């Protein structure tokens, strides 16, 4: 029977299933960070267990660390303790940590691919919901809670139920000002934030093949925002070109054999999916969120929707959203004044994203009333920014280039949008207070964030 890529990877990782029990599922790789791992290590210590496969796990610092130049001295006592706990735990259990000072420190989902740790056909988990990012390489990757982090540490396995599969086909070609971010935001707006709950998505179609690896990562990254357990894309020549010679990727004969295996992962023709959704990207326009969850999104040239015109189940949330974001239905969202602009996160903090921002900011100044943070996803990205002199463009435009980390995407550190301030952001969630207490977030692509920062209001075009 023809199989899709999800079924192929899934079946290869089913260790056993006893009658009346969930599937014992093998996890090949795990990424750790400081916020969701300490309690998992405690569980191992409490039970006197070892880490079963320490060489299949890597760790870094990203979520709660400062992004200032002096970040290695963490002022916040709790955040410092988290970092120290990760240092102690990785040392005690023999796990590689990419700490401050390492050329590979960065956001877990940025450094996994950069290191060649993320490989096609593998299963990969992390205590972070945006682990779906790694699906861009044809890995089956998903977020887990801290208990499951402990399960993988101790056994290399977790318990799973077989998911349903969804094919999201993207056809056509992207306009220059439209990106993978707009495509995933469109999908979420179409099916809703619970629309893919219980599914793993395969993204297919000529528009997906045409995307760079960075674009594919952005697409897979936000799969969780429509409730999907994971999202992935079949590996192709672009995938192999990206991974070849990366520090942790297979070398020599191993590489050649691996590529052969990876090519066989592609979905068979005539395979089945439980659901299929098609999106024509020719018609796609730059997207923006207006509310308090990622499904509340429209094209920038649309007017803000009336709650009364929505399905009954969506009205209360829309009214709550308008009360919070201080916007009025029926008027255009374009032209809404912004106070902050944020470029970064595991969604859009890679070099390609920052090149787009630099291209737009070059020779321009951001609006006088706007504060702009540019936070690279990793030390590798930061190095490229310096190599390509993008830092000068950012600084001359009036933006502030910070050190790598999650920063203002979730505002765990001191990078916060002030109460009541409105931020346009390349990140992935616009939940209430996500970027700081009482902050207002509008999600958009790097292109739109850059044009809006210059204009001082929401727009996809330079004034």
């Amino acid at each position, binding site marked *: 029977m023809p199989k899709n890529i999800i079924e192929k990877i899934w079946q290869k990782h089913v260790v056993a299933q006893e009658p009346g029990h969930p599937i*014992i599922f093998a996890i090949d790789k795990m990424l750790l960070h400081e916020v*969701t791992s300490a309690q998992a290590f405690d569980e191992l210590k409490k039970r006197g267990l070892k880490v079963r496969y320490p060489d299949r796990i890597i760790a870094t610092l990203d979520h709660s660390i400062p992004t200032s130049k002096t970040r290695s001295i963490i002022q916040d006592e709790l955040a410092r303790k988290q970092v120290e706990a990760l240092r102690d735990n990785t040392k005690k259990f023999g796990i590689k940590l990419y700490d401050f000072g390492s050329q590979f420190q960065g956001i877990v989902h940025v450094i996994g691919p950069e290191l060649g740790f993320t490989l096609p056909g593998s299963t990969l988990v992390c205590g972070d919901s945006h682990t779906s990012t790694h699906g861009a390489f044809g890995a089956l990757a998903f977020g887990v809670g801290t208990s499951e982090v402990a399960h993988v540490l101790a056994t290399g396995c977790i318990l799973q139920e077989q998911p349903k599969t969804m094919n999201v086909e993207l056809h056509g070609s992207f306009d220059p000002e439209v990106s993978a971010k707009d495509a995933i935001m469109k999908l979420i707006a179409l099916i809703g934030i619970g629309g893919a709950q219980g599914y793993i998505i395969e993204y297919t179609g000529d528009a997906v093949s045409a995307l760079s690896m960075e674009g594919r990562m952005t697409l897979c990254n936000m799969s969780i925002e429509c409730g999907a357990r994971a999202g992935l894309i079949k590996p192709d020549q672009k995938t192999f070109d990206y991974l070849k010679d990366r520090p942790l990727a297979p070398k020599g004969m191993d590489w050649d054999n691996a590529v052969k295996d990876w090519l066989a992962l592609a979905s068979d023709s005539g395979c089945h999916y439980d659901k299929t959704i098609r999106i024509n990207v020719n018609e796609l326009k730059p997207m923006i969120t207006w509310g308090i969850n990622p499904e509340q999104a429209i094209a920038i040239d649309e007017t803000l929707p009336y709650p009364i015109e929505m399905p009954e189940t969506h009205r209360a949330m829309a009214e709550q959203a308008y009360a919070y974001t201080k916007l009025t239905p029926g008027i255009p969202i374009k032209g809404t004044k912004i106070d902050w602009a944020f470029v970064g996160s595991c969604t859009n903090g890679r070099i390609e994203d920052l090149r787009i921002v630099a291209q737009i900011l070059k020779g321009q100044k951001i609006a006088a009333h706007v504060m702009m943070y540019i936070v690279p996803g990793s030390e590798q990205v930061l190095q490229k920014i310096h190599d390509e002199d993008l830092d000068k463009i950012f600084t001359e435009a009036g933006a502030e280039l910070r050190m790598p980390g999650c920063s203002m995407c979730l505002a765990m550190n001191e990078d916060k949008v002030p109460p009541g301030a409105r931020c346009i952001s390349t990140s992935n969630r616009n939940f209430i207070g996500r970027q700081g207490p009482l902050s207002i977030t509008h999600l958009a692509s790097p292109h739109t964030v850059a044009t809006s920062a210059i204009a001082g209001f929401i727009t996809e075009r330079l004034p």
Partner: protein
Amino acid sequence: MKSFTHLTSAAIPLPMKDVDTDMIIPAQYLTQINREGYGAFLFNRLKEQNLDFIFNHPDYQNAHILISQSNFGCGSSREHAVWALLQWGIQIIIAESFSDIFFNNAAKNGLLLIQLKKSTIDMLLAQAKKSELIISVDLPMQTITLMNGEIYHFDYDPFRKTCLLSGYNDLDYLLSTLPKIETIEIYEAR
């Protein structure tokens, strides 16, 4: 994990869909390295913004059941959301549906998630809004009973049920199957 069999409690109505884990516990409270101390920050943003928010209401401070709508627990994978709910005192959530990761996290901590159809949820929310709604949950029988005698059956995974009734958890089970895992070793075979 604590075991669970029966509970009778007032129910807190939270008539919202897509309650996300950032709402349940904002990221700023996650900078701790233990599993305790999260209950005080449950729904903190909503509590600060709105003094009428149900979790500020004195009548509900001893309630152990929460009723909500679809896609409860969506967003971030933070297990802290489950810890915060349990530590505040919530032991059961009744909703139309739950997000995948939240569902898994709840199961590992003894938080009972009960899925009921929309019409039943709507009825329960309407009743709870009118006057105090007391619900009795019986896990062995898989029923919820209202004070007026109405009984509703809920489906529950048999493995999860055994775990909850006995306090046995996933890691106990996984460790018991380690010899099996050892013989397979998918990773090396690839």
